């Protein structure tokens, strides 16, 4: 009887401690929401207490002033196309490298090049890339953003996909060859479907990385028309640091779609990260 009570109170304590721990992680979100719903004066007066009256106009003003819908449209376009291009091209390339690397040295070299590129800091290609894109007329364009941001995710994706393809036995491809299928057909009809688990986890990570990109976008998108959400936020805060409630309204606006998606897909996202860890 005593053991049972002791067990229960120990577990309650653990539960409370975990709640405390999580409040650290969730706290800033709560603060952001609370601040975004208050008026300027109320924010200064009452700190992080729940607002008396909810000031939805903070949001409408933040949207208007920061050109939010335009930024959202840019982010959506850039993210969708980047992820699409990135994942298709990397899946195809990884297939060949993974299957041919034992035959030809050059494919091993390719693999190691991509591996080395993982360590490359953006700064070392930042300026030359800017100059190149300028000459090609791709600066301040969504196409330029798509190309540049995808290119920087290539190394990571290839690394992960090759690791995965190496674990797929060749039997089915051999059977397809005997049946007369060419490489293209074999890849698209057999191998690609088998890559679904790794594709779904990297899909989400890639989308997240592209959506949140700042460094590359900062260099490429200088005109307001092509700014993505992170850039819009950055410039917005340069101007509106004193109006805290507007600033936080803008935070919440930017965070909301991602958080909603995250809560809907969290099983896959968390599973994907953990699965990637084992392969690594």
């Amino acid at each position: 009887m005593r053991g049972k009570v002791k067990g229960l109170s120990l577990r309650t304590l653990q539960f409370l401690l975990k709640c405390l721990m999580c409040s650290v992680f969730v706290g800033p979100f709560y603060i952001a929401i609370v601040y975004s719903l208050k008026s300027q004066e109320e924010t200064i007066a009452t700190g992080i207490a729940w607002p008396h009256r909810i000031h939805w106009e903070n949001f409408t003003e933040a949207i208007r002033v920061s050109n939010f819908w335009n930024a959202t449209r840019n982010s959506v376009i850039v993210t969708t196309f980047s992820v699409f291009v990135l994942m298709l091209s990397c899946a195809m390339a990884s297939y060949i490298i993974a299957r041919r690397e034992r035959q030809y040295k050059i494919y091993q070299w390719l693999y190691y090049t991509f591996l080395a590129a993982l360590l490359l800091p953006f700064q070392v290609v930042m300026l030359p890339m800017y100059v190149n894109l300028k000459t090609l007329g791709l600066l301040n364009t969504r196409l330029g953003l798509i190309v540049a941001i995808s290119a920087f995710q290539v190394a990571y994706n290839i690394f992960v996909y090759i690791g995965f393809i190496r674990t797929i036995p060749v039997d089915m491809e051999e059977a397809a060859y005997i049946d007369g299928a060419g490489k293209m057909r074999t890849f698209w009809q057999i191998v690609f479907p088998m890559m679904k688990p790794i594709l779904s986890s990297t899909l989400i990570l890639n989308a997240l990385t592209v959506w949140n990109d700042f460094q590359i976008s900062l260099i490429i998108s200088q005109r307001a028309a092509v700014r993505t959400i992170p850039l819009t936020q950055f410039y917005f805060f340069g101007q509106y640091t004193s109006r805290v409630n507007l600033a936080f309204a803008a935070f919440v606006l930017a965070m909301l779609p991602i958080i909603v998606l995250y809560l809907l897909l969290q099983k896959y996202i968390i599973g994907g990260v953990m699965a990637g860890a084992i392969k690594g």
Partner: protein
Amino acid sequence: MLPFSKSNSNTSRFKGHLTDLVFLFPVLLLFTAIVVVPFINGIHISLTDWDGYAPEYQYVGLRNFLRVLRDPRIAGPVRNSLLYAVLTVVFDNILGLLVALALHRNTRSNRFFRVLVFMPFIISLVLTGFMWSHIYSDVFYKLMGIKSLLGNVRTVIPGIAIMSMWRDTGYASLIYLAGLNNISPEYYEAARVDGAGPMNSFFRITLPLLAPAITINVTLFLGWGLKVFDYVMAATGGGPGRSSETVAIYVYNYAFPYNQAGYGQAAAILMMAGIFIITAAVTAVLRRREVAE
């Protein structure tokens, strides 16, 4: 082994290579155009005194590199980047491991907590930087009377490190969770039979078997830490003054606002070399410990 290569005729082998090239083409195009070509151009630029705009420039050989190494104002950024990297690597891993241990059992409440713990990671770094700079200056000050960590030259880097710990601990904990799940419970059973206490099993079983996960996390955070740009840019812009400038921001400033492309590029190349060396050294040490255990 790939079946396609079984045919021996030269034409079919050539065709085989051609198809390979088609598969590889998109990636090679992207990667070469955006990473390889600029990298090579960068080497060329670093050997000149180009400002980034003017059509003329002169070759100055390795002078840019020597200037970077002798610039007294690079000491600050280097120290900042190193300090930040060390803080984040150490604490992200310790906190990540603690969180993973706490949330290891696959109960519904633990799964719920995992979702909360990882949530910070999905927000952009810029947003994290801004949010926390306001939290430091408004919330902390009002609640606890602590002046913003970002305003004081000595606490600014730790202040930024804390915000990145908030975000990255969740990620680290997921990696450790995966690692913990891979440890067969039989080890713990055997240890308990032998009379080992929880401390003992932790240090003799858990830690050694987590070595690969530790390597991944340390290498990853080390790379991120040494390259840090977004957080600092968003939270302090390098300030107060230039005290929180990191190497990445130093390079950016010379390449763009200050219009010294050649110099900035040389700094970037040195930064890359530094990162390679440090990461390689740390990984080598960790790999050796992995094998030894």
